[in-house]
C-alpha cells in the first residue's frame, strides 16, 4: 500500500507542486493549508509522514505547535520541517519540538525525497526485525545505517537525519579531512558554510551531553572536519 505523506503548507502553489511531485514518486498525499484542518484530519487518521511549514496562515509559529500536537498523537511518526526560515534559533526550536529533520525550502526535491525514503525505511525496519544489519563502528561510535541510530559508548545519541548523515560522512574515513562540500553531499543538503558549522556544533553538543570528554570531530580550519580515531 502506498505511504501517505501529509503536507501542511500555506502557500497554495508550493503545496500543489510538492503534492504533485510526491504523487509522481508513488506516495499518497494529503495536503492542508492550516493547522486546524490538518489537526482535525490527523486525529481521525495519522499519515505515515508529515511535512510541516513553520509559518502557517495567521500563525507565524503554527508549525511548531502542530509538531508538538502531532508528536503527542504518535511518538514514532516521522516529521520533517520544511520551511523558508533558516536561522539557528528556528532550527533548534523545530528540533526540540520532536521533528526528525529540518530542511530549508531551497534544499530541492531530491534532498527531500532522500529524507522521506530514508525515514520510511527506518520506520519499516523498526516494525519488523532487521534481516541484515549494516553497522559502522569507529571505536566508541556505532552507526546503524539502516535505522539511522547512533550510539556513543553504548548510549543512543539523538541525531536528526541530516546530523546522522554528517556524522557518517566524517566518520567513514577516520583521519581524512572532509571538506564542507563533501559533507553536504553526504547529508543531502545544500547550505552555506556557516550552516555546516552550526550543524557540527550541534552534533558535538549532543555527543558531549553523553560524554563530556567527546572530541572525536576535529575542525581543520579552512579545510573541513576530521574524525579522530
Amino acid at each position, binding site marked *: 500500500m502506498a505511504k501517505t505523506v501529509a503536507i501542511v503548507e500555506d*502557500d497554495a*502553489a*508550493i503545496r500543489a*507542486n*510538492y503534492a*504533485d*511531485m510526491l504523487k*509522481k514518486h508513488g506516495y499518497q498525499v494529503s495536503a492542508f493549508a492550516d493547522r486546524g484542518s490538518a489537526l482535525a484530519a490527523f486525529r481521525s487518521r495519522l499519515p505515515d509522514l508529515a511535512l510541516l511549514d513553520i509559518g502557517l496562515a495567521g500563525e507565524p509559529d503554527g508549525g511548531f505547535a502542530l509538531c508538538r500536537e502531532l508528536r503527542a498523537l504518535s511518538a514514532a511518526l516521522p516529521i520533517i520541517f520544511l520551511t*523558508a*526560515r*533558516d*536561522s*539557528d*534559533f528556528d532550527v533548534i526550536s523545530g528540533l526540540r519540538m520532536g521533528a526528525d529533520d529540518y530542511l*530549508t*525550502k*531551497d534544499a*530541492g*526535491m531530491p534532498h527531500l525525497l532522500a529524507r522521506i525514503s530514508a525515514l520510511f525505511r527506518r520506520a519499516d525496519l523498526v516494525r519488523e526485525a532487521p534481516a541484515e544489519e549494516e553497522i559502522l563502528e569507529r571505536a566508541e561510535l556505532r552507526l546503524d545505517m539502516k535505522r539511522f541510530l547512533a550510539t556513543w559508548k553504548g548510549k543512543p545519541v539523538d541525531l536528526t537525519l541530516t546530523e546522522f548523515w554528517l556524522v557518517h560522512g566524517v566518520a567513514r574515513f577516520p583521519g581524512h579531512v572532509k*571538506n564542507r562540500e563533501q559533507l553536504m553531499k553526504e547529508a543531502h543538503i*545544500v*547550505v*552555506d*558554510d*556557516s*550552516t555546516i*558549522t*552550526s550543524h557540527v*556544533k550541534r552534533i558535538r553538543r549532543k555527543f558531549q551531553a553523553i560524554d563530556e570528554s567527546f572530541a572525536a570531530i576535529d*575542525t*581543520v*580550519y*579552512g*579545510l573541513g572536519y576530521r574524525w579522530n580515531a
Partner: protein
Amino acid sequence: MRLRFGLRAKVALVALVLAPIPWLGYRYVKDMEAVLREGQEQALVATARAVATALHDRPELLDLRPGVAAEGEMERILKSLGRADLRIWIVDRQERLLAITGDLRKKAAPERPPGDALDVLARSLRPVTAVLLERPTEDFDDALPESQISGAGEVRAALQGMAGRRWRNSTDARAVILSAAHPVWSGDDVMGAVVVEETTNAIRSLSDRTLEKVVAVTLVVFALGAVVLLAFASRLSLRLRRLRDEAEDAIDSQGRVKKLIAGSSSRDEIGDLSRSFSTALERLAQYNAYLEKLGGRLSHELRTPVTVVRSSLENLRMTALPEEARVYTERASEGLARLDTILTRMSEATRLESLVRQPERERFDAREVLRGCVSGYASIYPAVRFALSLPDTPVMLRGAPDLYAQMLDKLAANAADFSSREEPVRIRLDEKGSLTVSNSGPLLPPEMAGRLFQSMVSIRPDADPREPHLGLGLYMVRLIAEFHGGEARAANREDGSGVVLRVDCPIQ
C-alpha cells in the same frame, strides 16, 4: 595654506565699527578748541584796543626812552588793563620797544583735585595718553627777540593803522603764542602800536584734559566691549566646535551612527542645529539598520516564490517535454541557481549577525586557524599565490575560531579577486593580534575607504554577472572583527601598489 578666519577673529573685526568713536571725540574737541581760540583772539584784540584807546592822543605818554621800564601813568594804564598771563608791550613808529609788562608764563596753578570717577580714570591713564597728547608746558622761552618786534606782521599792520593778529611759536617752539596789535593814534598819526600776547596753554590744557577723558572713555568701552564680545564669541565657537567634533565622530569608519550630546538641550540656534543633526543622524542610523536587515528580510521573503519556481521546474522535469521546452527549463534552472547563490549569501550574513550576538567566546590560537585556512586556499584559488607570515609565539584571541576562519575566508576571497597576481597575497599576523591581508592591484577609491565595511557596499567595477556580489563579504569581516573585540580597516599601500585590509583584535 588658506587663511582661516575663526568666529572670534570675525567678531573682533566687527568691533572695528567702534573705531570712529575716538575719532569723532577728537574732532569734537578740536572744534571746541577752535571756538575757544577765536574767543581768545577777540579778547586779546579787545585788550589791545583798550590799551590803545587809553593812550589815544597822549603822545607824552609815549615819549619814553626805549629800554626803560614804563612808569607812572603808563604803568598804571598797562597794569589796570592787563591781566595775569598777558604780556603787553608798546612800540613806537620806529618799532622800538617802549614799554613791556606782564609775564607769559602762568603762575603754577595748583592742580585741582579730581572731580569724578572719569577724572580719576583719565589721570591714571596719563602715562598712556601722554604718548598721544603733547601736554602744554610752562617751561618755554618767553624771550622777545628783536626780530619778533621789527619783523612781525601784526606790528607792521598796526603801525600802518590797522589792527592785526598773529599766531607764532615761542623761540624754542615749545608753546604757541597769540598776539594782537592795535595802533595808538595821536590825531591822524599813528604814534606807535600796542601788542598784547598770550600763550594758548590755557586752551590747550583744557582741550587736552577733554581729550584725555575721551581716550579714557574709549579705552574703557573698548576693553569692556572686547571682553564681552570675546567671551561671547569664545562660548559660541566652543559650542560649535564641540558640535562639529561630535558630528564628525558621529559616524565612525564602520558606518555606525552615534547620538549627539552637545547643545542638545539648549534653546538657541546651536541647540536647534544639534537637534536637527541628531534627527538626521538618527534617520541615517535607521536607514543603515534597515539596509543591514534588508538582506535577511529579502532572502526570507524571496525564498517562498523561489520555492514555487523550483518545485514547478522539478515537476516539469519529470514530465515528458519536447526538446525545445527542455532548453527553456534548463535556462530557468540556471537562473534559479544564480538566485540561490544570492539568497545563500544574504542569509549567510543574516545568520552571522545573529551568531555574533551570542555571548559565547573561547580562547584560541589564531596562528593555527591561519595555518589551516591558508593551506586550504591553494586548492580554492589555484591561480593566486599566498604568502603567510606568523609570529613564533601563540597569538591567543577570544572569540570563535570558526568565525575567525570565516573572516579569513572573506578576506582571502576579496584579496584573490582584486589581486593583480604579480605577487602573492601577503597574509601576516603579528604577536599583538593584528592581521593584515595585502594584495597588489587596483587601489581603493578614497571616498570608499570608510564605507567598505558596510552592508551592501561593493566597489567591484566589472563584476561577473554570474558571480553575484552583494558587498556582504567585508561587512561580515567587520562583524566578526567586532565579535573578537577588534576592528577592521582598509587602506591603500603606502607605495600605491595595492590594498591592505587590516583587522586588529586584542590578544587575551
